[in-house]
Every structure is written in structure tokens, then in C-alpha cells.
């Protein structure tokens, strides 16, 4: 928004954003389109898009004159009515693309500099031309939120949308998602979608789709190929395998983690091999890990009972055990501790977590131990301190990732409050979240 003074002058001169204007300032004349004031920067600077395409900011001070040359574009994106489905070839399988956020197709309006996301199948197909040879697509945006604004309620909503399409007979489903919490949603869908008969793949993009280098093209292309042609009936992510545009990795939804803030190959499998390598141009699918559910004719069931009152607490030197009292006051029903190393928490003096852990367990609430090392398994008895924790009834969650343990405990608490039953379920391998055999090659994959 421009400053009040500028707004008044624009109004007085009947100038709208998008009009072509002439600005006189210090005996110099500038002509171009009046741009909307972007959120950052000085609101008393006029932003003018010059005829050569550049934007400049001119301070609106005493003596500056602005006049309208002619009316211009309306700087707003008009939503066209879009079709939901596009059939390229009746012989091809038809897949579903469900949007929750993040963009596949972007359109740049060079007249105004605006970038607009589009979720129409036509635009997706234009952005990713190989799709025509892979599958017919149905595309629908069910929500449009930033990854960091995802919530357990929205996981449920997403799960229901996916299930609907799976049971409607689509060959597979792609869910587009912002990348930051993509692996939480992947875990949530993994637990909630029971008896899955086909692949459900989460895809994000690390470099926005308005750039010629965006990873979205290969990611969606590989994902489409994977859901249309593989027999892996699992929830997984499909994202770049390396920094190059050569292949994507399909990684199990409970074993994947975002390990880099910005690289294309940020999504890595932890404690196991990726399920498959999907080559982009040759469209070859190479299975890496044979431990997966196969395609079937079953109908998926959404088991969407969740209790989000679970805390994830990271151990660190100086952690004040009183933090647990806060959560107890707020009626939290479960705790996942991201412990150090093999599963340690402080046990000495005023920093010892043991009294709190004991209190929580006595209240009949679960305490789950995972490791902030991420790689490797926690161990209940190796050291004295571990034994002290173990004796108090905490649940050592094997090699389950901390975030996955959080989601799993929410899901379990949606089903039972019985501590023994919770413990049993926590140690049951529902969706590949526990790998009973970690091999040497499973580190830093």
C-alpha cells in the first residue's frame, strides 16, 4: 500500500494502479506503468515499470508531479473457469493430482511483473509437456496453504480427498505440498490410509515454478510415471535424487526427512534405502527396496482418528524439566522426546528429567524416546541412564524419526488411552516406520 499522501494524489488525478503515468522529478521525466506497492520497502516511493521492463522506485517528495498518460492493465489475475480433467489418450491410465499448496504451474505476466500460480490441468500439461505421454490427469486444488501452516486437521482433510480419488479408481494419486512440513504430512497419510491399493505420492518443489530451472517439472513428471506405472502401493515422496535433473527418488512416507533448506535433493531416506529410482527422460523405474505393499484391488479406508495434544521436546544441555509441567497444565496427552545419542536425557541434579518422566508415566501418559541423531536406533538398556529411563516405563521407539513418532503418537492416542496398548502400538510397525534391520549402506543416502 502506498502512503496516504500518494493515495490522495492518485485519487485526485484519477490514476489507478496499472495506468501509464508520467512522473516529473528534478527536471527529469519518467514514463511507465504505475505498479502496486510491494509489501517491502518505502511506501512513499512510487514504483514505476519503465518501458524497458525495469522497475524503479521514485520518492514522492515536494515538487514531484504525476500525470496519467492512459489507462492500463488491471493488475489482478482473473481466474478462468477451468476443467478438472484432461484426457490425452484413452489408452493411458488416468491419475489424480491433488493440490494442498506449493505450485506446479506458474504464469508470469511480463506486462505487470506478476507471477500467478495455476492449477488447471491445461496449464500443468503446458508446463510439463511429458505428462501427455504418461497419463491423463485430473487436477484439483483442495486447499492452498503454505507448508508451515499445515495442521493435523488438514492432514485429515487431505487424507479424505486422497481416499476418495483412490476409491474412484484413479491409477494413483499425487499430492502437491509445500516442502517444509511435507514429511509430516507424508507420515500422517501413511498411518491414516489403511489398505492402500495404489501409490500415493507427495511432491514439492524447492525452486519455484516461475523459473526455468524449477525442479517441479522433473518431480511431477517422475511422480506421474511412478503413480501410473509402479506397483508400489505406499505413501511416499518423489523428489530429486541428486542436484542434477536426472532421476527422482521415491522414499517411504515414514522414512523421509527434509535435510536441506534449499537443495533440490533435500528429501532423503533415513535408516533405509529409497523404494525406487525414477529416471526422468527414459522413464525407467528401478526398485531399490523390495519391502513394500503391492498394488491390489482393495478399497482404502481412512482411519483419521487423531489426538493432536502431543508435545515434541528436544533435549539439550540446560533444558529446564519444568517445561513438562507447562504441557501437563495444558492437558497434553503424550510426549515424544528427541533425546541425545542412543536415547539419553539428563539424569543429574536439577536438570534431571527422571522425576518428571516418572510423574508423567504415573499419570498414565506415554513418553516416547527418539534420537536427535536421526540416523540409527535408540537403545533401552545399554547405559545406566538409559536403564533408569527404561525402568520408569518410557517407550523406546527403535529407529522411528522424531517427527514420525510425533504423528504416530497423535494417531495412536486417537484410538486408545491405555498405556500398555499405546506401548504395544508404538512398537508395532504399521507403515514401515520401524526398520528392524538397518544396513551399513543406509547411512547418508
Amino acid at each position: 500500500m502506498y502512503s496516504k499522501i500518494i493515495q490522495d494524489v492518485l485519487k485526485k488525478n484519477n490514476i489507478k494502479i496499472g495506468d501509464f503515468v508520467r512522473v516529473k522529478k528534478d527536471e527529469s521525466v519518467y514514463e511507465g506503468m504505475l505498479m502496486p506497492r510491494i509489501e517491502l520497502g518505502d511506501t512513499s516511493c512510487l514504483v514505476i515499470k519503465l518501458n524497458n521492463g525495469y522497475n524503479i522506485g521514485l520518492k514522492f517528495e515536494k515538487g514531484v508531479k504525476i500525470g496519467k498518460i492512459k489507462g492500463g492493465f488491471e493488475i489482478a489475475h482473473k481466474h478462468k473457469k477451468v476443467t478438472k480433467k484432461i484426457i490425452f489418450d484413452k489408452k493411458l491410465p488416468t491419475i489424480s493430482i491433488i493440490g494442498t499448496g506449493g505450485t506446479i504451474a506458474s504464469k508470469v505476466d511480463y506486462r505487470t511483473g506478476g507471477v500467478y500460480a495455476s492449477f488447471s490441468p491445461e496449464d500443468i500439461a503446458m508446463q510439463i509437456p511429458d505428462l501427455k505421454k504418461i497419463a491423463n490427469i485430473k487436477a484439483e486444488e483442495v486447499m492452498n496453504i503454505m507448508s508451515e501452516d499445515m495442521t493435523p486437521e488438514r492432514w485429515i482433510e487431505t487424507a479424505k480427498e486422497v481416499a476418495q480419488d483412490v476409491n474412484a479408481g484413479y491409477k494413483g494419486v499425487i499430492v502437491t505440498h509445500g516442502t517444509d512440513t511435507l514429511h509430516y504430512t507424508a507420515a500422517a497419510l501413511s498411518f491414516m490410509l489403511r489398505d492402500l491399493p495404489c501409490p500415493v505420492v507427495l511432491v514439492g518443489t524447492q525452486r519455484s515454478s516461475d523459473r526455468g530451472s524449477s525442479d517441479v517439472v522433473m518431480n511431477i513428471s517422475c511422480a506421474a510415471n511412478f503413480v501410473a506405472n509402479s506397483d508400489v502401493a505406499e505413501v511416499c515422496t518423489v523428489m530429486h535424487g541428486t542436484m542434477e535433473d536426472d532421476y527422482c527418488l521415491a522414499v517411504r512416507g515414514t522414512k523421509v526427512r527434509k535435510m536441506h533448506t534449499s537443495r533440490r535433493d533435500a528429501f532423503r531416506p533415513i535408516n533405509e534405502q529409497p523404494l525406487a529410482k525414477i529416471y526422468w527422460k527414459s522413464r525407467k523405474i528401478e526398485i531399490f527396496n523390495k519391502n513394500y505393499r503391492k498394488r491390489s484391488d482393495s478399497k482404502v479406508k481412512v482411519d483419521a482418528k487423531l489426538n493432536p495434544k502431543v508435545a515434541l521436546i528436544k533435549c539439550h544441555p540446560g533444558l529446564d524439566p519444568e517445561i513438562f509441567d507447562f504441557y501437563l497444565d495444558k492437558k497434553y496427552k503424550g510426549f515424544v522426546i528427541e533425546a541425545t545419542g542412543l536415547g539419553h536425557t539428563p539424569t543429574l541434579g536439577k536438570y534431571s528429567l527422571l522425576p518428571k518422566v516418572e510423574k508423567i508415566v504415573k499419570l498414565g501418559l506415554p513418553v516416547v524416546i527418539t534420537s536427535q541423531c536421526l540416523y540409527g536406533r535408540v537403545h533401552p538398556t545399554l547405559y545406566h541412564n538409559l536403564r533408569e529411563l527404561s525402568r520408569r516405563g518410557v517407550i523406546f521407539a527403535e529407529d522411528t524419526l522424531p517427527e514420525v513418532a510425533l504423528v504416530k503418537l497423535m494417531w495412536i492416542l486417537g484410538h486408545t488411552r491405555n498405556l500398555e496398548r499405546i506401548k504395544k502400538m508404538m512398537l508395532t510397525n504399521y507403515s514401515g516406520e520401524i526398520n528392524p534391520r538397518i544396513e551399513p549402506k543406509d547411512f547418508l543416502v
Partner: protein
Amino acid sequence: MDYKKLGLKCGLEIHRQLDTKSKLFCGCTTKMMEKKPVLIIKRKQHPVLSELSEIDVAAQYEYLKDKTFHYQVFNNESCLVETDSEPIHPLNQEALEIALQIALLMNCRIPEELHIMRKNLIDGSDVSGFQRTLIVGLNGYIEYYGKKVKITHVALEEDAASIVGEDEKNKTYKLNRLGVPLVEIGTGLLIGYTPEEIQEIAYLIGMTCRSTEKVKRGIGTVRQDVNVSIKNGARVEVKGVQELGLISKVIQLEVQRQMSVPRVKKEVRAANLDGTTKFTRPLPGAARMYPETDIPPIPIDKKMIQRIKKHLPESWIKKMKRFEKKLNLSEELTKQIIRSDYLDLFEKIVKKYRVNPSVVANVFVSTLKDLKKRENVRVEKLEDKDFEELFNLLKERKVMKEAIPEVLKYKVEHPDEPVIVGVKKLGLEVISDDELMRIVKEVIKKNKGQLEGKIIGFIMSRVRGRVKSENVVRIVKRLLK
């Protein structure tokens, strides 16, 4: 050829790399010294849809080639930013200040807020698919012998990656040049000038940039684009003229080409080293630009501009006047030394050693060229300190100006010996007045009865390069009287 009649219209876009410590949007060095890539990353690029759902001609053309881009990564010279794997860092302040200096030297207006734009490229030379560029100055001019040549804009931008190999399906780029700060200076339409004059204008712009002492020198650090059109023709953009001295030839040849083809098409052509051009792609439509959103606009406050203005280097016009009036250089010599790569050194030597400026200028603009041209002496091996020693010897009268070519030649061949050693070994030390008198008397005695001219000749053959020749003439004349 009468270019006025032909209706020659040209526009210049001059690019110069800035000699900053780090790149425009990351901490990598701008040195470009590494030879071996440590990694090669293969990538594809795709067209970006525009609001009209029409991928413009140029972009589509490139896309259809279905290329794989191979990016060579170099230690210290490329990081995650160049590989489009990390968002850009804040704008390099050193580069911004140099660009503002150049804009102010060209009498530009500086916007109060600078907006970084993304200019879409689809030839793969920028890993992200676009080049970042921002206007730092507008509506300026430079003076060209009393006329004002309009400078439409001065932009600061990131250099693209340099291409090192290409075949039908692959293009290989080095990432060390990507992100090096570059200024782009655009002129208004130049109408009524000859190709030579347009080249001269390009020189002046180059000199203005160089006066900041913060632009890179040498091959590949300067690139010019020239738009050429004649009456009834179409605008043709010739890209990448690497040498200033080629501009007039490029224009002449392009005019000839346009006259010889029946229908001139709007297109982009690349300059070859001999001044001819080759077709590269159709001319893209209006600039495909949209705002960079990773970092906010950059406010420019008045205090910053005032501070930069206070420390602006001397303009080339003032410098020319000073050279002619204060240093007593001829107009021709002034023009030559101002264009020379040795300009900075020339000024330093004249100031420090107080030797005759014309002598110093002549060494730089003609002696070195002659040595290179006639005797193929590799004068580029001479370092600044060698010239300093030489002119110090001249100042202390240990060597005569006539001896300079021989001494420089010796120095190139014996780079480890100080200049003075060469002077001694060549027997070119200055002869004292007493010694000269002794030699003159001896020669006169031996050649009694010979003509004055002959005797002077005999003497000169013994003392050439070691005394002032007018001294020999004066003494001989006096003794023969």
C-alpha cells in the same frame, strides 16, 4: 559510404565486469583463476508460461533444441547460489557503489529505491533461468566533442556463465563467471554518426568506467552489443563484440550485409573475432522481466549519493584538458594515452618521477607497440615495477630516452635482472660531459679534413643512446671553428 544517407541508426550497450572482492549475490571470489572443475552438474531448463500462455519466439526456439546443460563447478568460485540451490544473499555493496559512481560520472539520475529484476533467459547461461539486473541510473549523458550523447540507463547485473562447449544436444558452461558483477550502459539512439564516431563514443564510455579503477581489464571483461539498422531495414542486434576497436568494422559489415539481403529480419547475431557476424536467434519480444522477490528493494539515501559524488574520479574530459594544458601532451598523444591500458601507470609515473610526460606517454603508446609489431618482443611481460625503475633511471640521468627501446627489449629477455643491469650490459650508461669531450677530440684528430657531418656521424655511432645528440653537434661545431 554516406551513412547519413543510408539512415544509419545505432544503439550501444556496453558491459564491463567490476573488479570486486566477491560476486554480486554471494561470497564467491570474482577471480576466475581455477582451471579444473571439481564437479559437473547436468540440468535441463523449461519454458516459463506467460500470462498470455504464449512462450515467446526466442524462448520457444531455444527450448525446442532440447538441450542438456552441463555446469562446471570450481572451488572458491562457485557455491550453492550459482548452482541455483540456495537463495541469493544481499546485494554486494562494493559493486553497488562502483555502479553508482559510473552512473554519476555519466550524469544519471539515481532512483531512490532500486528494484532487482529477473530477466528470463533460456539459453542455459544462467542456471536459475534468469539473470538478475537492476537499474542504478537513468536519463544521463556523456559529452562527445560538444555534443551530448544520451545515456538511457546504467544497470548493475550478474554476468552469465561462460560457454565452453556445445553440440546439438549439450551445452557446457563454466560457473565461475556467473554472478560476477557487471555494469551495463545503454546509449540512446545514435543518429547522424559514422561507424568510427560510434566506436569513439564506445571508447569514451569505456574510459569513464575505467576511471573508477574498479573495473576488470583484459579479454572477456568487456562486451559490447550494437543495434544496427538502416533505412527500410530492421533492427539487428549484434551481441558480444569483445574489442572496442572492432565496433566500427562490425557496423560497416552489418550495414553491407543488410544492404545485400532482400529482406532484413529482426534478429540477434553474434560477433565473430574478425568483425563478421553469425545468426543466433530471432530477436526476443519486449524484455521478459519480473521482480526478484527473494530480497527487498534497496533504498538509496541522499547522504550516500553525496558521499560518492564527493569522491568521484576525474571525468575524461577534464583529464584530457589537464593532459594537454598541464602536461603539455599533444592532442593526438592525449587521445592515445587516455585509451591505453597503461593510463593509470602513466599517471603514477608522471606524478612520482617528474620526467617529461611526453616521453613517458610515447613509451606506452608507441615504443611498446613498435617493439611488439616489428620485433615481436613480448612487452606484456613487463611489470609496473619495471617501468618505474626505468623512469627512475631516466630521472636520475643514468639512461637517455634514446636507449629505452633497447633496454626494454633486454628486460623482456632477462626478466630476473634489474633494469640497471641491462643498461650496463648493453653499454648504454650515460656518458659524462668530460668523457664526451675526450671522444669528440679523439675522433676529430683521427679524421682531420673530413666534413663536419661525417665527423658527427662517426661520433654518434659510438655514443648513440648515451648522450643527447644536440650536445654532440654543439661540441663538434665549437671545436671545428
